[in-house]
């Protein structure tokens, strides 16, 4: 009732908060914009204002075979991480938010620990561990390293949806004669769909952009963020911001497509 009730002097304060938020968004995107600007500069060394514009660095980046391989590796890792994360995190979320079992409170805290942990240290610890086990480092070990950090995050995201899931739906389905497996397929999964989907989206994008874990665990293979870091340290060319802008654009496309399909999923569920 009553619509969006705003109390005392809503207009002015809302205005200030809106303006502040806008500033924060500008703050977040300013360096991204700087990277795009730099990628469009003709000269080898960056100077502002840009005197000569050119797209040759974009041309070169797109044509580069080396970069093609980097992107392949990054996408491969991200896809593997997404596939495994979704399965583990879905089950984890049920244990986190749906079932009432004895170890639940402890489980909830355990799941949070890897998130509350410095990633660089985690990467080094995994490096030591793989070394102790005698495992050769490659993109496969990187997938595992990403999972340690991303599965807990995906679990949290799916959990939020699971919390709002009405357990009576499952009971009703059982009561109407469905088997456990049918309940999962016909009721639980479709209702939790949007949450699982956002979990998957996060998993893919976080893996795609990850640097600290990849750095120590990919071995001879290299991901895009690693390559960029090496180039930043070892000698600037406008190829660096170009590839940066390219990966940013890729992530943006995935996010927008994902968001739109997510909205359609919610619509289809009628809420």
């Amino acid at each position, binding site marked *: *009732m*009553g*619509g*969006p*009730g*705003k*109390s*005392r002097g*809503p207009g002015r304060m809302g205005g200030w908060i809106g303006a502040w938020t806008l500033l924060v968004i500008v703050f977040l995107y300013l360096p991204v914009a700087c990277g795009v600007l730099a990628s469009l500069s003709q000269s080898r060394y960056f100077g502002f204002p840009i005197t000569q514009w050119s797209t040759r660095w974009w041309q070169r980046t797109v044509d580069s075979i080396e970069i093609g391989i980097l992107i392949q590796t990054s996408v491969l890792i991200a896809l593997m991480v997404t596939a495994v994360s979704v399965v583990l995190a879905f089950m984890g979320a049920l244990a986190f938010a749906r079932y009432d079992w004895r170890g639940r409170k402890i489980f909830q805290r355990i799941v949070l620990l890897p998130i509350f942990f410095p990633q660089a240290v985690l990467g080094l610890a995994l490096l030591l561990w793989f070394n102790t086990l005698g495992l050769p480092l490659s993109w496969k070990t990187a997938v595992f390293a990403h999972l340690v950090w991303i599965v807990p995050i995906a679990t949290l995201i799916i959990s939020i949806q699971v919390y709002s899931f009405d357990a009576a739906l499952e009971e009703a389905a059982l009561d109407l004669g469905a088997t456990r497996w049918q309940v999962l397929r016909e009721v639980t999964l479709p209702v939790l769909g949007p949450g699982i989907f956002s979990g998957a989206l996060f998993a893919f994008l976080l893996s795609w952009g990850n640097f600290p874990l990849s750095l120590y665990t990919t071995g001879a293979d290299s991901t895009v963020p690693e390559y960029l870091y090496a180039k930043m340290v070892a000698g600037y060319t406008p190829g660096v911001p170009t590839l940066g802008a390219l990966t940013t654009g890729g992530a943006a496309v995935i996010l927008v497509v994902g968001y739109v399909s997510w909205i359609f999923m919610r619509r289809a569920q009628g809420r």
Partner: protein
Amino acid sequence: MAEPILRLSGLTKHFGGFTAVKQIDLDIEEGEFFTIVGPSGSGKSTLVRMLAGLEEPSGGEILLRGERINETPANRRPTCMVFQSLALFPHRTVGQNIEFPLKMRGVARKARRARAMGLLRLLQLPESYYGKSVTQCSGGERQRIALARALAFDPEILFFDEPLSAIDYKLRKTLEKELKDIHKETGKTFMYITHSLEEAMVMSDRIGVMRDGKLVQIGTPEEIYTRPRDKFVSEFMGEVNLLKVKRNGAGLHCPSLDATFTGPASKGFDSGYLVIRPEYLRFLKPGESAENQVEGVLYNEYALGSRIQYQVRVGEQVFLVEKLREQRYHGRLDDRVTIGWEARDSMLAPE
């Protein structure tokens, strides 16, 4: 008559293109228990939120003792509201909740405590509750705590936004009476919002019936009950028999029964509804007669505690008849029965 404590003139509220409250004029007298009744979405909550200062009016005026308070924020109005959810502070004890308004006004700790204790007594809560967490209190106790908190700083008017709606029937009946007692004891002006006319009847000095943002009728419970202004109000009063009729000379013609009835005297009534309360209908024994009567089949009966309700079908029309248990109809279901009523017991409601 003295100056009203609260006067609303042309009070209006828009939300975007939607008008929740339309041009309300109303005077509330000092010390009155005034209740606004309406279905959900009728704008009654928005109205009371404007009076409490939680919503700014889009038009019109709110006058408190003749002074315009449209722009006065909620925390500087001498009024207080009991919310639907009660809005008790979950991180504070019972005592801290009750003392909250006093603490905000810089009242010293000792005086605050004394006042809180007094209010606990007034509301029949044990003094040991002072240090108890509000989350551990029962529904009825929470109601009393919310009321105590609202009374703490001695506001001139108390608003209630359906605080009893989530309470079970029996406790609600008790709390309704308690609230009326507190009203008498404190002598404050109470303004109450509810969707239940029954609740309004029990407590109020006057009732305003609200629909689509407008007050459609204002009057004492007696007036509203016996002389509803239109079909909406009469239906809102509980279950009634409605017959669509058209004036036909001295009588009222009912097309669905193809019968003509005599109604109460009324000027200017042309077409609308003849309203008969179930308790005014009688079963006629052979040889008895009434001013109006119809014949039908006794289809079903429902026990309503002290009363029994009967469903009588006359063609397509269904009549409800209500009798006290000791005056119940002795007969079987599916009997053919004759029911009747006197013209003075019926009402006319325009469309």
